[in-house]
């Protein structure tokens, strides 16, 4: 498994994606150091200034300011912090919940499997965005609530895909053989089944990060996200919507940030899938 991960570094997809993700992570971690201005500082004397390559820009605000005179670049950098936090913790949480239920469901089968699978069916029949909006209304705004809402909506994605993989692995005789040698169910799942589903799990997790970024942006856009005092890309798009004719850059720049982040997570997921998935790796990539 570690060898396969190292091998995946040979794929250009993974390398490009990792470089982009590292840049975003860097912005997120060192936001307070690298941001030129405080993202909340309102500068009402210079509102809606354009970015530096457009005439009439202000050198103090490299990417211009928004309708309240806040520095766009600083807000983008702090927005990365929100996006990365949500992407990481929401996908981790969804992965843990989904993985546990998928392994229980696929390994034990029978009634347990039936109950969990029907629960997933019912859950997935709600439109995910509507479900998360309803949850946010109930939970209230805030970063932790956004993460919780995404976990509650997206665990089903992991559960359904992993369950079928667990079913395939569990049917192998080596899982039965482990039981014969005295392994408990827990040991059989963690030592025989889980290592086989891990490649899929990692791939799913990186794809889920992309989804979490989009969902967070949507929630912030409608004002049910992380809260007004914390900069978020979705919020920036919502703010810029009113002045889109005067200052299109305010809308396009956060949209570009979302696009780049989602693309890099998707690229990473795709690259990892190609190297970690034995079936694809054997047929030559």
């Amino acid at each position, binding site marked *: *498994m570690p060898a396969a991960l190292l091998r995946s570094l040979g794929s250009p997809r993974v390398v490009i994606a990792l470089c982009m993700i590292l840049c975003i992570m860097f912005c997120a971690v060192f936001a307070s150091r690298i941001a030129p201005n405080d993202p909340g500082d309102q500068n009402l004397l210079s509102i809606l200034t354009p970015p530096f390559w457009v005439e009439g820009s202000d050198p103090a605000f490299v990417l211009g300011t928004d309708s309240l005179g806040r520095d766009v670049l600083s807000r983008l950098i702090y927005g990365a912090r929100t996006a990365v936090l949500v992407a990481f913790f929401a996908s981790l949480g969804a992965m843990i919940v989904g993985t546990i239920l998928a392994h229980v469901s696929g390994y034990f089968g029978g009634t347990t499997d039936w109950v969990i699978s029907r629960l997933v069916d019912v859950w997935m029949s709600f439109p995910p965005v509507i479900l998360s909006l309803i949850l946010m209304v109930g939970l209230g705004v805030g970063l932790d609530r956004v993460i919780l809402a995404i976990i509650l909506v997206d665990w089903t994605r992991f559960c359904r895909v992993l369950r079928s993989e667990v079913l395939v692995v569990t049917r192998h005789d080596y899982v039965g053989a*482990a*039981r014969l040698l005295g392994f408990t169910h827990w040991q059989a799942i963690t030592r025989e089944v889980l290592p*086989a589903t891990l490649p899929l799990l990692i791939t799913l997790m990186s794809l889920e990060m992309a989804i979490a970024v989009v969902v967070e942006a949507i929630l912030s856009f409608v004002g049910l996200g992380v809260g007004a005092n914390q900069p978020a890309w979705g919020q920036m798009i919502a703010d810029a919507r009113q002045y889109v004719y005067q200052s299109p850059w305010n809308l396009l720049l956060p949209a570009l940030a979302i696009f780049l982040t989602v693309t890099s997570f998707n690229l990473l997921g795709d690259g990892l899938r190609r190297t970690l998935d034995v079936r694809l790796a054997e047929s030559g990539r």
Partner: protein
Amino acid sequence: MTVLTLQAKDLEVGARIDGQVVPAIRGLSFDLAPGEILGLVGESGAGKSMIGRSIAKLLPPGFEITAGSLLFEGERLPQMPPARRRALLGRAIAFIPQQPMTALNPVMTIGAQFDEHLARLGEDNRKGRRERAIAALAAARLPRPADLLSQYAHQLSGGMCQRVLIAFAFSSNPRLVIADEPTTALDVTVHPPILRLIAEMQQQHGTAVIFITHDLRLAAQLCDKIVVMYAGRAIESGPARSILSKPAHPYTRCLQLANPTMHSPRRALYVMPDQMPSLRQLANMSGCHFAPRCPLVVANCRQAEPPNVAIANGHRVACIRATEAENIATTDALAATTENSQRTVLQVDKLQKRYAIGDGLFGGARTVEAVKDASFSIAENEFVALVGESGSGKSTIAKLLVGLEQASGGRILLNGDDLTDPSLRHSAERASVQMVFQDPQSALNPRRRVASIVTQAMEAGTRHATWEERLKRTGELLAEIGLAADFATRLPGQLSGGQRQRVNIGRALCNIPKVLIADEIVSGLDVSIQAQLLNLLARLRSELGFAMLFISHDLSVVRYLCSRVLVMYRGEIVEQGPVETVFANPQHAHTRALLSSVPPDDPQSPWPALRPAASMSN
């Protein structure tokens, strides 16, 4: 002089491996006259399937004909324009595949497929096509052929599918039929009728047949001529009977001695060391390719490849010590079948297993009885065989005994403790009944190394053995199962089939079990590897002293290894007793059917099941 149907002259098929071309087949020559059956015999990897593939131009990627010629009725097959070859294939040249179930289209009826085939043959009249299809199916001895036309492949048994495909193959009146292991995927009891059908059709149509098989005895019964292949080379060829009665190449002789006997007195198996070289190894070999495994090897063998010379009428052999081959004899002592112990270790009492089919929520559920009131016992140190055709419930009994399935009724007593008692599950008692699984590919976790697999029992439960302890045990176990110590760090993907099966056995032996259940553990392996494993099991019994339930469909293997036999038929044990008694005087019709499916040891004696006199149907 008549035109030969197929003639190969110094045919060479090269495979591209790591940028270098390795000959997968070298210098292969044979003549096939109309109406003859030619047997291509060899173990897996010998290159025997390459001939059929060369003819159809279906060689795997990277393989191509590099030298020599292959003539079909005087025409060069490889150089033929594609249109001409398409016109021949399926018409003048027909194929009978190895996997009849997958060779038929699952979503088309038999009738639709036959209709399509006949339309391609140029039969324009729809009604005429239907009549021809019915006549062809009837000729293949299929019951109610008209009804069969509206059925799908999954509604037929494997034997019936193969009959349908034989009807397909012969419906175009072909001049050449290539049958690639046509019975290997089928139950043993349908082998003789299928082979008989091929022989009859061949005689009726005067067709030339290439019969590809791994079974020397079977080839001797069916074929006129035999070519024995080893590592891509025809090492011996000639009239079928004379090759088997007087094998001139050491490999043919060893192969014969590695096969357990069925009718003649039991003898020890000859064990060839190692295995056939792979294509990769072939690239760096010089001299005779059999030399590393040959009991007659001399220094000259490693110098140059021995020429293919004629030793008798039509009998050719590629060995410089051909005259001495008949002196090869087994030196190992014959494994004793029983070490008279009267103490019962495992007692099975009226064991039952029922499965519910359908969930009962939508539509009715019904139950299927997989095992009906099975009762038997195994004594200490005793090897008991469980035989029967697929679906008879053999594997279900194995799973019930080890606790992978729960019994619907009955008792399993291990030294008096009832294993069906739920409180005993996962106890030490349970763990002393171990199982070796049929398919080592599936039974070995591809992510664990050999050391971790064979000592897996030591990481079970709350016991935590240190790595030093486990490595020490690994060393002992690898020695027991006959693998070198450096195998400990390998992954299952780096092992051959025989080595994997050894690891599979080693894992079950880690905590020396009282009873070992072996489910068809040699069935997928080549004869020489099978002989290695059978002798390994016999040796392990005398060293470790365990009892075994040996599940198999191969009666000659059962006769070699086991002292008692249980015959299973449709979930019931229909006959049981000492092997020699049951085989000499079978009481149940199914036991007789199983026994008649084994070809005789002596190529000169007739195989009654293959003669048309016997009226059998499946």
